């Protein structure tokens, strides 16, 4: 325990030197960190200078109404590996799934981390919070709402990981039986960073934490509270298939000539034009590929209410009410409006609205 405390008080530079890592090794580490944070390589000296003095922040990870997919994503992060992240970058003091302690001992660890790092620790949240009835989701007899408010009170910042924590996600989808809300709807007095995605890209999760560690501040955010560096451009704008869209070459089915030749998947329901995320560059599975490269359109999982946005295979069939807001993001990001507005013409909107049925609990009961 004393060793752990000593390690926590050391700077990252000291910690790495103690492990016998050379300056060259440290600079390589900084180059990888810059790449992970999507910062240009020219930033490496500045990152080295900052990381040299950086201290590992305490991180408390809270899981509410979620599927553990976000944690699964994080544990598949490879640069740095989750081991590096836990032992070098941060001090992960509480995480249901990853910690050894359970029951009262686990809750005691959370309280100890909060007490010892008052005002300095980061709270990471995955999952939405049910407001309809606290009994829908509780941990150690404490409701999600109470645990969130209590833990965030002394935090420096909150990172809402995954679309459930950022926007309500699947639990918030119609008819939202638990009254699920996002972290940002509850926490108003602390900075909240939304790292959306279902799940988010692993290096985007670690990139945001590394940014806080490196610069001691949060990255620049977009209108939805997401880091601009990862969510600043649409999937469509960074898609390597974009030239096919511009030429009007589309796959019409998943096994036609266009699909085999890797043409644009817009007509197969790709939500790339209205989705902001880093999939096209960060990619998935250790940089192997990403959905569009695998031949499937983007589902739009990092956007609010994507579960309620109509069929995944309908070309941009989004609920009418969301249209103005989503087109607004596109304009704000400086993307050519014509492409999206043209696609979202009146007939598409009418069709989308007609297809988008509102399902109530009574309807579900009738069907079962």
């Amino acid at each position, binding site marked *: 325990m004393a060793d752990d405390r000593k390690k926590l008080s050391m700077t990252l530079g000291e910690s790495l030197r103690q492990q016998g*890592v*050379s*300056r*060259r*090794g440290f*600079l*390589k*580490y900084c*180059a*990888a960190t*810059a*790449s*992970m944070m*999507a910062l*240009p*390589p*020219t930033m490496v000296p500045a990152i080295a200078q900052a990381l040299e003095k950086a201290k590992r922040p305490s991180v408390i990870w809270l899981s509410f109404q979620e599927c553990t997919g976000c944690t699964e994503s994080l544990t598949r992060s*490879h*640069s*740095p*590996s989750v081991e590096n992240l836990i032992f070098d970058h941060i001090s992960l003091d509480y995480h249901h799934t990853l910690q050894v302690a359970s029951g009262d001992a686990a809750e005691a660890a959370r309280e100890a981390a909060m007490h010892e790092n008052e005002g300095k620790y980061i709270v990471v949240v995955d999952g939405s919070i049910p407001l309809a009835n606290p009994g829908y989701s509780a941990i150690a007899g404490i409701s999600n709402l109470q645990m969130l408010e209590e833990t965030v009170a002394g935090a420096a910042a909150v990172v809402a990981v995954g679309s459930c924590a950022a926007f309500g996600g699947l639990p918030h989808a119609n008819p939202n039986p638990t009254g699920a809300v996002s972290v940002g709807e509850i926490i108003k007095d602390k900075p909240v960073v939304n790292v959306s995605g279902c799940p988010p890209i692993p290096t985007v999760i670690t990139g945001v934490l590394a940014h806080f560690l490196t610069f001691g501040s949060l990255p620049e955010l977009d209108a939805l509270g997401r880091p601009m560096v990862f969510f600043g451009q649409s999937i469509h704008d*960074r*898609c*390597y*298939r974009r*030239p096919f869209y511009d030429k009007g070459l589309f796959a019409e089915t998943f096994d036609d000539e266009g699909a*085999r*030749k*890797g043409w644009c998947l817009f007509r197969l329901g790709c939500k790339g034009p209205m989705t902001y995320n880093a999939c*096209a*560059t*960060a990619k998935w*599975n*250790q*940089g*192997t590929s990403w959905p569009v*490269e695998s031949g499937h359109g983007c589902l739009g999982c990092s956007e609010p209410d994507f579960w309620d946005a109509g069929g995944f295979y309908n070309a941009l069939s989004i609920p009418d009410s969301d249209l103005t807001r989503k087109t607004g993001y596109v304009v704000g990001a400086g993307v050519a409006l014509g492409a999206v507005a043209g696609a979202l013409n009146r007939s598409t909107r009418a069709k989308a609205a007609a297809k988008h049925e509102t399902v109530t609990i009574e309807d579900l009961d009738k069907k079962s």
Partner: protein
Amino acid sequence: MQRLQDIAIKVESPEGVQASHGNALPILYEILHALQRFSTEGEQSCIDLRSLPFGPGDEEELLRLLGRGEIHMTMEALGESTIWETAFSGVWIVDHRNAEGERVALQIEIGSVPQIVFSQQEDIVDAIDRLAAQLKEH
């Protein structure tokens, strides 16, 4: 357990379909301009290839077009890094891998030598102490 890179995955393009998506050429122009700047003004530059939205085959095409030059190095620091000069003098590839052999950064550096190759002052100070201590033993 088998690692992802050990599983043989081969992307087969139908006959007559381009093997890359044309993203290599714009990068080559960027490299040309950077090399001109380095030659006339001495300005070094670096391109992070992982920040580019490459399609299948683009990276392979770019590395093929750049070719191999006279120098090839490996560096052992937090995993193996491979560094080589391309067929174009002053254009270097720096491929950083972690201890598990997974790529953590892939950069094109334009300059006389990639910055990471130079001995670092902190390591030199440490080397003086170690060498002096070793001499004391004799």
